[in-house]
C-alpha cells in the first residue's frame, strides 16, 4: 500500500504527480517485480552460505575458551574432551575408534635437537608422507611440513634447488638432497611477529601454535626464513581411515580452515619418549633426533664430533636443526667401482 502511495512521487516514474489510480497500480506492480528480483539476487549472492557446515561454527564454550597458557587444568581437560567430540563428529568416526586427545607437558631437563646427515639422504621423500600421516595434515589442499630440496652439487643456493624432482630412481648422482622443515629456532622470528601470541616456544625448544587462538594473519609464515609454516587456505581434507587418532592439543589435532600450522617435532610422540615419525621412516638413517642436554645422546655426539652446518646461519635465528656430513662425503656421489672377476687392474 505504501509502495502504491509513493510511486507517483517517484522521480523515475513517467507519469506526473497526482495522476489517476491506474499508473499507481502499474507502479506498484513494477515495484513488486523489482523487489522480487532484488530479493532473488540477494539470495543468490548469499548462496555460498549453503556450503557452510554448521559444525564449523564455534560452539559457545569454544568461543569463550581461554588462551592455552591461561587455561586451568580443568578447563584444559574440558577443551580436550570437546576437541575429541568435534573430531568424532567431523570425521564421522565409528564408536570403536577411540579418539585420544592429550596434552603432554614438556619434560624436565630435555631440549630437543634434530640432526640430518646430508651425506646419506637419498631424497626418497618417505619422511614427507610419514609426517603428513602422523600429523593429520590436509591432503587436499595439500599441506606438508617437510620439503626435500634437490640441490646442485657444491652449492647451498636454494634458488637453484628443485623440489618437484621425479626421476624413476633416486638418488641422482649429480645432486644432493636437503630436506627442510621447521628448525625450532632458539630465537624464532615467527613467535616475535605473532600479534595474538598464538605461537610460542616451549621449554623443550619446540615452537607450538594454539590453533584456537590463531587468527590466520600469516605474519609468521612471512617471517620464517625456512618456509616452515603452512596456512590452511581451505578446510583440511583427510580421509577418515588415514586419521591418526593419537592426538595432542599443540600438535596434530585436526586444524580448521584459516589457521597456521607447523612441524612440532611430533611432540605427542617425542614427549613420551618416542622418535618423530620422520626419523622412524627414514630408510637410510639420515635423520637423528634426541635430547641435546644428555651428553650420551646421538645428537650430542654429532654436535661434538661431526662436521655440522646450520642452514641460513646468517639470519641469526639459532636453529635446533643441524645438517652434518660424513668424513668421506656421500657414497652415492661416487658409485663403488666394481672389480669384475678376471678383470685386470
Amino acid at each position, binding site marked *: 500500500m505504501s509502495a502504491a502511495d509513493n510511486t507517483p512521487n517517484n522521480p523515475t516514474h513517467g507519469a506526473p504527480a497526482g495522476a489517476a489510480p491506474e499508473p499507481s497500480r502499474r507502479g506498484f506492480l513494477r515495484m513488486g*517485480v523489482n523487489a522480487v528480483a532484488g530479493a*532473488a539476487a540477494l539470495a543468490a*549472492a548469499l548462496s555460498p552460505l549453503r556450503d557452510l557446515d554448521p559444525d564449523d561454527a564455534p560452539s559457545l564454550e569454544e568461543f569463550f575458551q581461554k588462551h592455552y597458557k591461561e587455561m586451568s587444568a580443568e578447563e584444559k581437560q574440558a577443551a580436550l574432551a570437546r576437541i575429541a567430540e568435534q573430531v568424532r563428529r567431523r570425521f564421522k568416526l565409528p564408536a570403536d575408534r577411540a579418539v585420544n586427545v592429550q596434552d603432554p607437558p614438556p619434560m624436565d631437563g630435555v631440549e630437543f635437537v634434530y640432526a640430518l646427515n646430508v651425506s646419506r639422504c637419498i631424497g626418497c621423500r618417505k619422511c614427507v608422507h610419514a609426517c603428513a600421516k602422523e600429523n593429520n595434515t590436509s591432503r587436499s589442499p595439500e599441506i606438508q611440513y617437510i620439503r626435500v630440496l634437490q640441490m646442485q*652439487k657444491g652449492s647451498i643456493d636454494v634458488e637453484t634447488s628443485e623440489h*618437484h624432482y621425479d626421476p624413476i*630412481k633416486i*638418488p641422482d648422482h649429480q645432486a644432493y638432497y636437503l630436506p627442510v622443515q621447521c628448525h625450532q629456532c632458539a630465537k624464532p622470528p615467527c613467535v616475535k611477529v605473532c600479534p595474538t601470541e598464538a605461537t610460542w616456544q616451549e621449554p623443550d625448544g619446540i615452537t607450538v601454535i594454539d590453533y584456537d587462538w590463531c587468527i590466520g594473519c600469516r605474519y609468521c609464515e612471512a617471517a620464517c626464513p625456512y618456509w616452515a609454516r603452512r596456512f590452511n587456505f581451505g578446510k583440511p581434507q583427510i580421509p577418515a581411515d588415514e586419521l591418526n587418532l593419537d592426538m595432542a592439543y599443540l600438535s596434530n589435532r585436526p586444524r580448521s580452515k584459516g589457521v597456521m600450522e607447523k612441524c612440532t617435532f611430533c611432540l605427542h610422540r617425542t614427549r*613420551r619418549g618416542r622418535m618423530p615419525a620422520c626419523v622412524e621412516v627414514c630408510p637410510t638413517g639420515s635423520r637423528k633426533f634426541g635430547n641435546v642436554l644428555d651428553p650420551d645422546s646421538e645428537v650430542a655426539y654429532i654436535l661434538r664430533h661431526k662436521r655440522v652446518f646450520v642452514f641460513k646461519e646468517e639470519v641469526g635465528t639459532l636453529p635446533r636443526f643441524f645438517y652434518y656430513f*660424513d668424513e668421506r662425503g656421500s657414497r652415492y656421489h661416487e658409485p663403488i667401482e666394481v672389480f669384475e*672377476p678376471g678383470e685386470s687392474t
Partner: protein
Amino acid sequence: MDKPGHRLTLLPVDRGTVRAVIVSLVLFALAGMLWADLWRFTSPVEPRTRVPAWATDIATVRQPSLRPEIEIVGFTYRCSTCHRLFPPRPTTGRTLTQHRDIVLKHGINDRCLNCHHPENREAFVDDKGSEISYDQPQLLCAKCHGPVYRDWTHGVHGRTNGYWDAAFGPVERKLCTACHDPHVPPFPPMRPAPGPNTLRMGDQRRFHARHEEQENPLLIYQRPTSRDELDEKEHE
C-alpha cells in the same frame, strides 16, 4: 498518458515500466548466474591421489634372517647341512660350483673367505681367525669400515627406531645388514615417493608444456635448474 512526441508511444507501456522490466531482468539474470555459480574457482592443482602404502612403511629395506641358513626351492637348510659333508678346501679364489646365484660386488673385497670362516661355515671370521656369530654382522663389517662402525656404535650411522629415551621403551638400533646387502653393499636406489602437489615455482615451461598458450602468474623465475642441465645432457 504518454507525453506527446515520446518515442515509446508504439509500445502500450510507459518508459518507467520498460526501465523496471530491464532492471528486474538484469537482477534475475545476475541471480541466476550467481546461483549457477558460473565463476566457481577451479584450482590449477590436480587433486591428490592416495599416497602408496610403501611411502609410509617404516620397515627396513632388508630383513635378513641373521641365522646361518640358506633357502633352496622353498626349503631352509643350515649351512652345516652341506658343509659338514664337503669340508672346505683351504684355497681361495677358485671357481664357484655352488652358491652361483650370489653376486659379489663388494669393491676389492672379492674373496668369500675374507668374511666367511674357512672351517666353520656357520660363522664369520675376524682378523685373527676367530669366529664371529651370524647375528653380529657389525663386528664383521668393523674389520674394514672403522669410522662407520665408530659412528654406528654412537647411533650416528644407521637407523634408530622406537624410542629416543630408553626410559620409555626400546631404542632399536638397526644392524648393518638391515640396509646393506653384504655381497652388494651400496644402499639400493629406490623410487621416490610422490612429490608435492602444489603450484610450482621456478621455470613453469617444463611442467606446463601442454598449456603453453596460458600465461602463468608464477612464471617469475627462469634460471635453469640442475634438472634442466641433466635433461639436456640426456638429450645429447
